């Protein structure tokens, strides 16, 4: 099976991406984000969840959440590359919102063959936010690992590392029972559900542990069928996260290049010195490889699904390593100023460090990839 030359990124996708680009340029400059999320620098500050609900409303009205919802479920049914491009713009703006988490929930629900899932997708298409609660205390990314148990449709236990938990309205929860792991929809306002926010480094999102005590849940994937759905969705989830890092990486590259071109030391612009110029070129090379791999993997999800996991692991691996590299060089080459709270760089630095580990860092992706390409080691 082969892919279309243009990664399936046609005029519609480009139009959507360009609209997003304009939206973020108009509504959330780095300066605005900084003022918003970095207002309290105290290292022992209280844990807050800061975001702009009105912008989220506009995004829903623009129909971004419907992009990858199948038409049958009331969505637009665009290819995955469409939201990948959106994720890239989100990363470039370090935009705090439940958008990417909602995409990830969408991809999982798309793989759940149930009426409840279709209903949920329809609600997402009309702007209901959602997120995944599928990770256990040990931070396992394996689809069968969960610390939540399901008995008679009631959930008990804890979910960990839930992204944008305080912004999302619905949770897609992985819970185990004798019959295996299933997936369940839970409204965040449900009785017995407690969101315990994490204190995280990334200022542009929130994360939480969620406690379930006899929480009513709606089944979207029957016990035993949950892991398959999550695994089918994982390539898209990895691509979304990779695209976010590609976008943040591009912001860091452009910002640092501009600084290095204007900042003068030893009577020369910093970028005159190859010790600055060449590492920045290397950052560019890393971004471009990660970007191409991400669009390739996203295209595969629609056009050659059998290769999707392999290609998505490649993309996440490249993007994760690039994220750390782009973040570190940006602070380094901004010199003293880049080390201050006032400078915008740390906002993106922290987002990159968060994303590089989310859903598994480069080393993890490569170990999974090696099993796919070489078979398990003896």
């Amino acid at each position: 099976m082969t892919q279309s030359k243009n990664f399936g990124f046609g005029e519609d996708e480009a139009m959507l991406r360009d609209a997003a680009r304009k939206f973020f340029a108009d509504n959330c400059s780095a300066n605005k984000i900084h003022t918003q999320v970095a207002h309290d620098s105290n290292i022992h500050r209280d844990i807050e969840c800061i975001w702009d609900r009105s912008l989220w409303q506009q995004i829903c009205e623009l129909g971004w959440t419907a992009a990858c919802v199948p038409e049958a479920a009331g969505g637009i049914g665009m290819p995955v590359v469409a939201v990948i491009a959106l994720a890239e713009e989100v990363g470039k703006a370090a935009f705090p919102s439940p958008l990417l988490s909602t995409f990830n929930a969408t991809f999982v629900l798309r793989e759940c063959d149930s009426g409840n899932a279709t209903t949920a997708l329809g609600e997402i298409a009309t702007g209901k936010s959602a997120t995944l609660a599928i990770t256990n205390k040990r931070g396992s990314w394996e689809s069968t690992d969960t610390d939540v148990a399901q008995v008679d449709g009631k959930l008990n236990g804890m979910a960990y590392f839930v992204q944008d938990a305080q912004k999302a309205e619905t949770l897609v929860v992985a819970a185990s029972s004798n019959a295996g792991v299933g997936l369940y929809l839970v409204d965040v306002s449900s009785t017995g559900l407690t969101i315990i926010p994490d204190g995280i480094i990334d200022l542009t999102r929130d994360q939480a542990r969620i406690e379930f005590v006899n929480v009513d849940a709606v089944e979207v994937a029957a016990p035993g069928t949950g892991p398959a759905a999550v695994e089918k969705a994982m390539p898209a989830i990895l691509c979304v996260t990779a695209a976010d890092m590609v976008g943040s990486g591009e912001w860091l590259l452009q910002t640092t290049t501009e600084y290095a071109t204007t900042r003068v030391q030893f009577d020369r612009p910093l970028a005159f010195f190859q010790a600055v110029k060449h590492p920045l070129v290397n950052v560019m090379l890393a971004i471009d490889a990660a970007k191409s791999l991400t669009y390739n993997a996203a295209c595969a999800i629609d056009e050659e699904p059998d290769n999707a996991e392999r290609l998505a692991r490649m993309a996440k691996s490249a993007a994760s390593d690039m994220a750390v590299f782009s973040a570190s060089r940006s602070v380094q080459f901004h010199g003293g100023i880049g080390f201050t709270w006032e400078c915008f760089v740390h906002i993106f630095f922290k987002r990159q460090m968060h994303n590089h580990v989310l859903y598994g860092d480069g080393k993890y992706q490569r170990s999974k990839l090696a099993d796919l390409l070489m078979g398990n080691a003896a």
Partner: protein
Amino acid sequence: MSDETKDTPEQAEFRAHCQKWLAENHPGQPPVHIPQGALELSDPDAMEWLQQWQKSAYDAGLVGCDYAKASGGGGMTDCQSIANQEMQRAKTPFLPNIIGMGMAAPTIYFHAREEVKEELLPRLLSGEDIWCQGFSEPGAGSDLANQQTFAEKKGDSWVINGHKVWTSLAHFASWMILLCRTSKDDKYNGLSYFVVPIESVMGKGVTVRPLIKMTGETGFNEVIFEDLVVEDKYRLDEVGAGWKVAMTTLAHERGAGLLVTPSAGGMVTAEEKGAAVGSASSLIDLARQSYRNGKTAADDAVIRDAVMKLIIRQEGFRQNQRRIGVKALNDHPMRLPLQFKLVATEIGQDIAQLAYEIEGAGSSLYVNDDNAPAGGQWQLAYMNSFGITIAAGANEVQRNILGERVLNMPKSK
């Protein structure tokens, strides 16, 4: 990854032709040792066999497809890439006239007079005339503009004196693309660009001496010009426009040119015992076949991680080439094209270097040992990889070009 889908009607028809012809005309395994690439060619028999293959591919229309008919081309549009894909898939041998097709042809096509195109391009594309490149000099490596070879106008002709080095294939070459100085007053605008005969004037103004590489291979040379007389019609573009013309050559060399270079390959030669050499994924086969410190290398998690890193880098490079074709995903037109040479050569070097660790103690063995893993080809490839990280503007210079032309950073001079 092939691209049938989205072929234009012309492309689809041509692809079918290629597939049919290749199925019937693959030359089979070579009767002589074929090196890893055209630049390593030193055996005349190998060259002759490969020239015959290029001629037959040319006669079948698989070489020069996108060049005008008047220049001996196929007069088609965007079809060379189709032919390349099919030849790759058919695992044919490589085409030997690599400098001719990749650098000389497009430069001549865009800068030479019609009569010169008609005279030279057909025999170039057919591989009957092998071409070499006269850019590097003892004092002009990465600093290409520092040319000292001088062409002096005498009547209607030019008299050329100077010394070129690292000229691959010169010992087989009928013609050379030559960058030289026509004025000492201006470093860049003092350069002019010529095509000059080599074989026909050997010993009469041209001397070719082989240089030996660190691998022990020959294949590149130094070329000395002593009062070589060249007709004015063989000058490309205006006097003093040499630098501008050379940029066309380099753009195509770096995969950033307008014309797609005819290329074939994919054939695993008999010499390459065990694993095929070159691609990152071939390291997987090597790791499965190799004992590293007594154990199968493919079971070593650290080796697996290193191999995956390279497979990912190489796939990223491939997908970059694909993304070049998608305008909406390129914010700067030259950003990806200018990365080609830098990225390709460094990946190749790192792939070959890792092979040493995969092979363990066996990596000490060379091509002259029957027990060498993969026939010692990985060690050969590693050493040869420096030829290309150094050549055509060392990669340090490539990074300057990217920093300055794409990221608009100030020059480092």
